[in-house]
Structures are given as C-alpha cells and as structure tokens.
C-alpha cells in the first residue's frame, strides 16, 4: 500500500475529525478547535493519503523565529497502522521544524500510549517531565518529551559502513544513495584447507585487514574521515567473534572523530544494497538472501521500519551445503563455483535428490523454511553406495542434480512467498546468488509468474561494507537518532532489529 504525505487543507477537516474521534475517543478535540489549528498561521498540518482517502494526519506549531517547536498531534487510522505512515509524518514534521530553525521539539503523550512513545524514541525524544492527570476525563498522566535536533541533515549524507560478520572485511562509503567506495578483503583462501569458514581464522583476518581496507576505501572515495556525517556498522547477525572486531573498531572511530554511529542489521543491509544499484528500493518486496551463513526469506514493507522474517534454514545454509557436497565429491572450497563447474554438461534430472521441507506436512509448518542437511546426506549416500559397489558415478550428473535440488527449493519457496502475499517483486542477495543456475531458474520462473526480479551486481550481493553504509545513509536521511555507544554485537540478531 503506497501513501502520500501532503499539507492539510480546510477541505480535509471532516476526514481528519472522523479519525480524531476514532483514535482519541474521550479526549478528542472539537471540530472548532481542529479548524482553528488548521487555520492558525504558526501551525503546520499534514495529511497522509491512501487512494484519495485521508488515513492519518499530524501537526506542529512553531512561532516565528522560535527555536522550539511543538508536536501538537499525530494520528493514523487503526487499520493503516504498522505501514510506516506514522513515521513518515514524524519525518516530515521534524524536517519542517529544522527548516524553520528549530533546535528542539517538544510533545506530550499519554502515559499509557506505549506505541506512540516507542515511535517518538526512534526520533530521539526522551521524557523530561510529567503532567499529572493531564488527559481528562480519563485522568491519565502525560509524559512531556523532548528531542534536540542535530544540525540540519544534509540531503546527501556521507556515510562509512563497516562489515565484519563473516569472512569478508568490508568498508564502503556512500554519499546519499550514491556509491563512492566498496573495498572488500576476503579471508576465503585461509579457510580453504578447512573446507568451511573457521570463526577464529576469520576474526584474526578482520583485525589485520581493517586498517588497510579503511585506507583504501577513503582513497577510493576521495574523502577524509572529517567529512563523514556518520559511521554505520554491522552488529549482527553473524559470527560473534568476527562481529566484535568491527563493532570495537567502529565505536572507537566514532569517538575519535566525534561522528554519530548507527548499528545496523546485516540481513537488512543485503536488502538495502539494491538502492546502490537502482537509486531506490521498491517496496513491498520479498527478499531471498542466500549465502554460506544465511538462507532467509524476508517480507520487506519498509526498509527502516517493517521487515519480517518469513522463513529461514532450520539447519545448514545453502552455501554451506554447496561446501559440504563439494567435499564429498572431492572438489575444493568454496563449493559453489566448483559445483557450478563440475555440473557443466551434467544431467540435472539424472538423480532425484530430496527437496527439503516441501512435503505437504512440512509445508503446513515450514512453508517458507529451508533444510539442506538431508540433501547433503543423500548426496553422500549416493556416492558412497556407488563406491562400495565399485561403480563409476558421473560427477557432472551428481553435481547438476544436487544443484538443481537446491535451486528448485529456493526459487519455488521464494515465488510462493510472492504469490501468497500478492507481492510481485523478488530481490536476491547473498554470495550464493553468484550461482549461474540459481540466476537462470529465478529469471525464468519469475518471468513465468509475472514477478519483477531484482539481482544487484555480485559485488553488492556478497557481504560488503557499502550495503551497511547505504542502510546507515537511509537512517540518517530519515532523521533517525544515532545508536548509543553501548550496543552489543549480537550473533543471532533478529531481522526486525533493523537498527540497534
């Protein structure tokens, strides 16, 4: 559902009053009060419109030349809540206050309205006072809240992003929505002899790579640390020891330079990467993120406000399955490209390997979840059986059939998510997107189902700092307050925690 924010007109009065009465019941303003608010020279009222109908409104008041503004009211129709309208109204009011020279914004909120308080805290509002029994006739207390406005946010903030959640040390720099630098140092080769990412090896490599990667990123972007508007860092999910290297570095850099810091979610960063390619993210969209560490299906209604996890792997990540099967077939690490090569000329229908969690009973409980551990075992069993009978097996057929099983499940479930939610958009992210067969099948099946498919360039699909920078940039542009310095690295951070 898309909405538009515009300035309120006198003709909106009836629609506004209908929402006022519905939302505030006992302490609703009278029609006369509302009319004089809309008419007053020092007020600024906005409405949110969906399909020509007013579904929300908000207003602020600021006397000429005053450095303080007050938020007078904000309301969204109950059936339209949770779609980002309230936040958008707040952004617009805040920006107007900044334009008019306000340094502080005040508001009052019912003590029992925790939903509104949560929204205000996102914008940096803190409680500074209490008005006893302010709301009558209910006798409910009011919290007085205040936020201090940062110097007017530039429309195009310069943001540096740091990513260390797995085996890539990434630092990216963006200005607004434009990519200036994306430097990645991978420790992949160091993990090769272990057949998979070793957390301690990855964390050691991050510490060594961070300094040179930062230097290169600044050189590539031709900017200095002083010019930055903010620093963003991945604080989860990922490998705990690896995350902590980036978090420790980012916090110290923020203190040393006096720049605000934004702790952001790695998975949501993968979604944000599309902005670097397209200049914007079209929502709502389904996102399929597939890498060595994650296999997740997301429903993104609003990048900064509303990301929902539909399903994820219950055992191995898809990339991990490629690595493990590569080992079974005597191929090297990382398994994805090796299996792609080995599958050349193979028959993908030669062996019908199992498709995890696709049986009717599984689809009830795990409609959007994935499982690859059984598939890996089936491949190993197939190979061992052939070897025990001293039969030759065709590596190309096994590789192609295995790959087909993985791709089939990934694409089928992603498309089901699009169709179930009537969202004709699918965004791919994560390193496994490099797999040629996955791209082929996704392109063909999306086209057949009328789904618009987005595949950002590979350098933005694998883990990188630019996607963290662009997510930070969106938060800055939308007026979100920075994170406080004591956030933690959280290896199991939920996708709903977009900023910590």
């Amino acid at each position, binding site marked *: 559902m898309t909405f538009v924010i515009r300035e309120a007109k006198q003709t909106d009065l009836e629609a506004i009053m209908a929402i006022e009465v519905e939302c505030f019941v006992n302490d609703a303003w009278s029609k006369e009060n509302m009319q004089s608010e809309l008419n007053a020279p020092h007020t600024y009222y906005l409405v949110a419109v969906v399909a020509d109908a007013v579904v929300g409104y908000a207003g602020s008041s600021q006397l000429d030349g005053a450095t303080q503004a007050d938020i007078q009211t904000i309301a969204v129709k109950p059936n339209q809540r949770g779609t980002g309208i309230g936040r958008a109204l707040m952004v617009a009011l805040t920006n107007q206050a900044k334009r008019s020279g306000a340094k502080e914004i005040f508001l009052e909120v019912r003590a029992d309205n925790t939903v509104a308080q949560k929204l205000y805290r996102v914008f940096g509002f803190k409680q500074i006072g209490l008005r006893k029994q302010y709301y009558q006739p209910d006798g409910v207390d009011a919290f007085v809240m205040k936020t201090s406005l940062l110097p007017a946010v530039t429309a195009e903030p310069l943001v540096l992003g740091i990513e260390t959640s797995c085996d890539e040390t990434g630092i990216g720099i963006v200005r607004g929505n434009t990519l200036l630098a994306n430097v990645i140092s991978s420790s992949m080769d160091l993990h090769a*002899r*272990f*057949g*998979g990412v*070793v957390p*301690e*090896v990855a*964390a*050691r490599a*991050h*510490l060594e790579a*961070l*300094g040179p990667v*930062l230097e290169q990123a600044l050189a590539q972007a031709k900017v200095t*640390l002083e010019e930055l508007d903010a620093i963003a860092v991945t604080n989860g999910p990922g490998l*705990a*020891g690896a*995350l*902590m*290297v*980036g*978090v*420790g*570095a*980012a*916090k*110290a*850099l*923020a*203190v*040393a*330079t*006096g720049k605000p*810091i934004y702790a952001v979610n790695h998975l949501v960063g993968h979604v944000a990467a599309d902005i670097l390619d397209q200049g914007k993210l079209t929502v709502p969209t389904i996102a399929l993120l597939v890498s060595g560490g994650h296999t997740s299906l997301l429903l993104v209604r609003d990048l900064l406000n509303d990301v929902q996890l539909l399903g994820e792997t219950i055992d191995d990540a898809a990339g991990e399955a490629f690595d*493990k099967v590569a*080992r*079974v077939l005597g191929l090297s690490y990382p398994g994805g490209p090796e299996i792609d090569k080995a599958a050349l000329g193979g028959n993908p229908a030669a062996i019908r390997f199992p498709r995890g969690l696709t049986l009717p009973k599984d689809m009830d409980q795990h409609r959007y979840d994935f499982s690859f551990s059984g598939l890996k*075992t089936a491949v*190993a*069993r197939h190979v*061992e*059986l052939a070897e025990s009978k001293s039969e030759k097996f065709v590596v190309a057929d096994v590789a192609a059939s295995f790959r087909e099983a993985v791709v089939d499940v990934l694409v089928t479930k992603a498309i089901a998510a699009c169709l179930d939610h009537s969202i004709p958009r699918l965004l791919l992210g994560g390193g496994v997107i490099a797999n040629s067969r996955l791209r082929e099948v996704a392109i063909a099946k999306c086209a057949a189902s009328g789904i618009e498919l987005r595949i950002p360039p590979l350098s933005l699909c694998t883990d990188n700092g630019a996607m963290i920078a662009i997510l930070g940039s969106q938060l800055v542009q939308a007026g979100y307050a920075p994170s406080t*310095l*004591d*956030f*933690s*690295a959280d290896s199991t951070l939920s996708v709903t925690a977009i900023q910590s």
Partner: protein
Amino acid sequence: MTNVTSTRLPDYSLAIDTSAGTTVALLSLGSVVAEVNYLEPMTHSERIGSAIQNVLKQGRVSPRDIYQVVVGRGPGPFTGLRVGLAAAKFFAIGAKAKLVGVCSLDAIAYSYYLANPDQSLPLLVTTDARRKEVFWALYTGITEGVPSRVEGPSVNKPEFLSDHLKDQKHVVCELPITASALGQVAYYQALTDTGTSKDSSPLYLREPDAVPGKAKKVSG
C-alpha cells in the same frame, strides 16, 4: 603583559587493554588523569566505546589532544583481546595519533613493582589461559620504569611451569591488568633507549582450533 603561560599542551596518551576485562586510561606525561575498569571478561565490545568516551570526558580532553594510543597486545582470550586491538587501531587512525603496543603481562609486572619495590627474586606473572593452562612471563626486576622480561610471554600447563622453575626461587603475582599501568610502561619505554614498539599485533600464542576438513562417511 608579563603574564606568560605555557602554550605547550601536556602529552596525552590513551591506554586500552582488553586481554582480561575492559580497562581504559587517559594519561598525561605518564601520570594517570582518568581510568575506567570493568573486570568482567565478556562485555568488551559493549563497554569499549563508552569507556573511551568516559576517560576523555573526565579528563576534559578532545580526541585530537591524544598523541599516542597504547594498546595491550595480550596474551589473553582472543575474542576479547581483539576488541581492544581493533578499537585502539581505529581510534589512532581517527584521532591521527600514533599507535604503540605493550605486552599486557608487562603492565601487571609494573603494578607489582610499584607496590613491592623488592627485586631480589625473579617475578613470575601468570594469567588464566583457560583449558587448564596459564599465560606467563618471568621478570628480573624493573629498570627506569620498564619491567625486565627475561622469559615469555608463553602459554603452558601449570605443571610445566613448576617443573621449569623448580630450581629457581621466585615470587608469583596475579594482579589484575590496568590500562594506567600499561600506559605508564609505554611512557617509560619511550624514555629509554629501546623506545616503544610500533608492533601492535596480538600475542595469541596459540593457533586457531581447527582441523582440515574431510567428508564424513554417512552410511555404514
């Protein structure tokens, strides 16, 4: 006007060690201006940012006034140790300060000698290395503020250590590591001929735990 004031700023240094808990200190010419110590061994990445900010605030010093960052190179549990090393590195870059490394056990020896001037016996400093082992180093005294390390840092089982030192009388100390002591060691090192070490790489002393992978048999 005859009222002459010195325009020279004190040489501020910031010391950081996360080889055990999280400890951060602000020093001016070798004397401690402010210090923050968290003993718990798990919260380094949460604490480090505000710990640095707090000592700067207490000392009313801006990051640009820091000319040197001193970091404890360990040994210590790897995950926590790296947080301090990463923070020190990026603070130094951000504040355009120089970065020097000090063996964390040297800071413990410094604290010991400060409290116990007697140097007649060698000093054994140990810290918990987990897995029934200890990190250790042996000192013969302190010269011009710099502990004289003659063995270590190493990691061994306590049985090895007692056997290794069985013919040598010594004293043992297990004091906590403080960033103030670390900063003071670096300050005194700079005054000696050897100088401070630009090496700020971690003293892991152990290889990562990992064995080259083989495919496991699944049928059998």
